[in-house]
């Protein structure tokens, strides 16, 4: 079964024929070629596939593509400005050692963005809660917390 859906993807209006069993992750990565969103487990356990759907951070590996009909989706590809300037969160992850192998990074950054958009003054505890579903094997999390906190100072909640 194929269904036609429409949604906003990083500000662009998209219309797409999707198979009913496709996940949002499959649609983004395999069909649309947006490789920035990663698959770490395919089972809702690692957060590497996090994207923002209508302001909420979700695991795109568990989300059916047909469910995004009528929503606004943000992925890691949509964060930097068109002139190439990184989003404050991207910049602070770079500057504070929040990125080593980088496989968790798109998901971490998207979860952080959803948090700061909603709660621009999130404290360390709230950051920990928001990132609890995003696994990182490289950094020990400390540089990631610092990255989010530094982005907060830079006004990380703004576009």
């Amino acid at each position, binding site marked *: 079964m194929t269904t036609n859906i429409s949604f906003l993807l990083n500000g662009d209006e998209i219309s797409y024929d999707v198979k009913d069993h496709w996940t949002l992750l499959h649609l983004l990565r395999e069909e649309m070629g*947006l*490789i*920035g*969103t*990663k*698959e*770490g*487990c*395919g*089972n809702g*356990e*690692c957060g*590497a596939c996090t994207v923002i759907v209508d302001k909420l951070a979700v695991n795109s590996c568990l989300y059916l593509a047909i469910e995004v009909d009528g929503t606004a989706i943000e*992925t*890691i*590809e949509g*964060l*930097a400005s068109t002139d190439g300037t*990184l989003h404050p969160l*991207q*910049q602070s*992850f*770079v*500057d*504070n*050692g929040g*990125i*080593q*192998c*980088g*496989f*968790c*990074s*798109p998901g971490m*950054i998207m979860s952080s963005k959803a948090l700061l958009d909603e709660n621009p003054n999130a404290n360390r505890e709230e*950051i*920990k*809660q928001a*990132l*609890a*579903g*995003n*696994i*990182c*094997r*490289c*950094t*020990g*999390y*400390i*540089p*990631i*917390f610092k990255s989010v906190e530094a982005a907060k100072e830079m006004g990380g909640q703004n576009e």
Partner: protein
Amino acid sequence: MSNFNVVGKRIPKLDAAQKAMGRAAYIQDIKLPQMLYGKILYSKYANANIVKIDTSKAKALAGVHAVLTGEDVPEKMKMGFIKDNPPIKKGRVSCFRDEVAAVAAISPEIAKKALDLIEIEYEELEGIFDPEKAMEKDSPLVHEHLKSNVLKMPWDVHYGDVEKAEKESAFVVEDRFTTTWVTHCCMGTSGAVALFDASENLTIYTNTQIPSLAQKDFLESLKAMGLKNKRVRVIKPIIGGGFGSKLDTYAYEHVAILLAYACRKPVKMVFDRVEEFKATSTRQPTVTYIKQGCDKNGKLTFRDMRMVLDNGGHTSWGATTPSVMLMPISSLYSVKNVKYSAKCVYTNNTYSQAMRGYGNPQATFAIESSMDMLAEKAGIDRIKFRKINQNHAGEETPQGLKITSCGLAECIDAVEKELHFNDNNEKGVGTGLASLIHVGGGARIYGSDGCGAILKMDDYGKVDIFTGGTDMGQGLDNITAQIVAEELGLSAEDINVVHSDTDICPWDVGAHASRSTFVAGNAALGAAKKVKKKIQDFASKLFETPAEEIELKDKMVFVTGNPEKNMPIGKLLRKAHFSPGGTMLMAEHFYDPDNQNMGKELKGNMSMTYSFGAHGAKVKVDEETGKVEVLEYVAAHDVGRAINPLLLEGQVYGGVVMGLGYALTEEVTVKNGEIMNANFRDYKLFTAKDAVKIKAPVIETDDKDGPFGAKGIGEPGCVPTAPAIANAIYNAVGVRIKDLPITPEKVLAALKEKTVKK
């Protein structure tokens, strides 16, 4: 302190922006025209004979291009340290992860469906899962033709006279420690894409830490396939975490090659998470018997250790980890008389490989737990006890390790300063200390411990450096760039580091043994020095000044003490290039450290230098639940020189948290050979919620052989973590847990036993 311009700076990882934007391409992201998808079918039993395989239904499925079984694998195509393991088995399976068939199809879904259509008849055999039982005389054999489950390995040494030293000791302690399977959990799963060109040369994109050795393995596979005199090109995409998991070539790579050849199309093989848990190698589980003693002043007299390692169903490089275990056993703290023997024993469990520390975490867990026990028995403060026995520069250990720089004492001091060991009176709160030694200047395990680098400068003052070294997220790209920039008076952005392709990068033995900063760093430095010399010679003619008086700084070339005589480096390069008889400035350097292979006597200076460190933990133990909370953690490391403190801290934090998982939560649960928790819900990694406050003091000892004084730091962060925690738990509530991970259940059981004894 020395006056550096680029070395020592917190320069963000060079590829971080690409990664932050989601543009970095990992193996998962590689798509080639006409690409097929490969999948592997694994054994249903831990130990069985394969009676019959029927692949006809799978072959008939539309979209399937090839189905292979063990019968299709050339006789000589074998993997592992003793080349005893074919990438697809035939006749007999010896563990659940044994490959029994593989398919290539036009989509991953069809490939999966095809696997379901393969019919296999097995005859199940009794399995053996306990290595100590597998050593018993009448135990069933995992590989009958070998006549024994115990591998023939040389791990049996005696330095000095342990028996005599024991008799002369004032205090002796003895115990048994055990560790279990843990796994790397790289966030990017394993994978490879293989393809042949029209002349049957192979290109393979693969997540490897050993591009040059992998190239050799793949050449051997081609040879076994009857493809002689062919070329193999290994391309590394961006790697989603290594930690030792990519230090060998694996079945999925060889199977991708076989399938690509069978179909004459590119074949992509990428693991899903369940497969990653079940079919990649773990850290070796160990049973350790340790006995050590000291005299009445607390000076160590001897150390006697015996280990049994679960080798699993096949032999991988894991069987060589005792060579690294020997290092802390013989050389962590000064001790003259040392005995060590290790037996690697086949079982029908999964098999192990390299994982961050390469045996050192297991050995250090036993040694440092036992150090605390001995200190207590001798009635000496545990910190003082370690200081009495600390290593020092200039020492040669019984194994023949030559300690050239040693900041162990400073590390212990730094931990003591941060943690205040003895002033916690709160109930259930305690502190613990543990130290480490690790190779920090290469490790000669193969014939060569070298790394090559090729450096070229363009007409504008920019550098491309092609290194044999591998970046897998740890930051070798930065280290290389910062070293080259420092030497040539440039900034790190001026340096493009290429480390991804055996067609253009020189040989390197691999990203293992925390050797890349030291060895690949020295290779890059050597090449930079050669180019610098050429620049100085050229400028010397230009400025009519001796070459020694030419300095390079801030992208300028100038004469010492006469800074008006100067030229931007780009201009000088163009002058050199566009003059009659012109030249381009390029150089290559192959650095092979002057370290030694241990040989049969298991003696020799295997590394040019050694890294030291001390970890301190403050924990709170809930005596109702047995739960251990880490309140504070200090990890002090002697790194020689911090080339980039930002990345260095990242290595330490990441290492410590991996070590905390090893200490407290991580365990691959294996039941009769079968892995029961192949997912992140049941395999408990530390998450953001569990994150711990970590301080990471850096001790710089300016190693005489390290590039700008640096030593390796990739592995040390996770080496002494488990004993630091175990010692802190003992200090807090008086129970000693000798089996990892230290789960609440084990703590509770020990607390109960303690009350019963009272």
